[in-house]
């Protein structure tokens, strides 16, 4: 499961997903967010409240506006961690493929020299 139930419920609405996608491009005000939708600003504000409660966005106060920004911490980082692990293992194992191609004379494991411990 990628996100908590609250987060998932917040993301289940297509308008809210569209709002998040817009915010992935950068911070935006309610007016800017309402523009592409056939929706009143109060209606957009209600969606923003749900997203804020789910931890997916945060808002700050600038004069009379309250611009919103995406909070990626609201999404579980599992997917990103798995992607990084996959890339790391792939890079390592490709290097290992090359090394294995050069290994021809096995050494008994008990003869391995060990490096001295760190000071």
């Amino acid at each position, binding site marked *: *499961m*990628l*996100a908590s139930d609250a987060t*998932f419920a917040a*993301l*289940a609405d297509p308008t809210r*997903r569209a709002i*998040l*996608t817009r915010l*992935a*491009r950068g911070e935006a005000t309610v007016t800017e967010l309402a523009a592409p939708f056939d929706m009143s600003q109060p209606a957009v504000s209600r969606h923003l409240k749900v997203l804020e409660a789910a931890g997916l966005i945060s808002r700050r106060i600038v004069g009379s506006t309250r611009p919103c920004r*995406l909070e*990626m911490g609201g*999404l*579980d*980082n*599992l*997917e*990103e*961690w*798995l*992607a*990084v*692990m*996959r*890339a*790391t*293992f*792939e*890079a*390592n*194992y490709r*290097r*290992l*493929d090359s*090394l*294995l*191609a050069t*290994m021809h004379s*096995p*050494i008994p*494991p008990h003869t*391995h020299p*060990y*490096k001295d*411990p*760190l000071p």
Partner: protein
Amino acid sequence: MSPLTLTTEGDRFVVVTRHFDAPPKHVYRAHVEPEVIAQWILGPDGWSMPVCINEARPGGRIRYEWTDGNGNGFYLTGEFIELVPFTKLVHIERMHLPDPTPDNHIVTTFEKDGEGTLLTMRMTLPDTATREAMLATGMADGMEMSYERFERLLAEMFAAK
């Protein structure tokens, strides 16, 4: 297609499998000989492992130190629990970022697979905080959540709905 698989098993484990065109004896050696380990367990391009201690015996110590040459670095310590030559390794490791992450219990097996080897590694899935710390090491640089990745992530999340 990449021959690597990396999958979660429930919410507690991660399982990695990979085929190698070399006999189990050689793949095993590459996991226990420090001189060999330091040449391939490196992560992204540009990282190196200037310190590699790997005492391949039960109770033996493990210490790997990595650097990216730009001041970023971290290290890993661990202990071997069980070694079955050319077949199986069991060890515990933790990363120091610099605070130690919870112990990760890892079982690595080396099975004959045709003319080569099937490597299977089963490890603990780190918790959210540990994943966050690992992602902050710099190893994730260049993999920030871009606009494109975010759109794809959302699409994947709802593809099954």
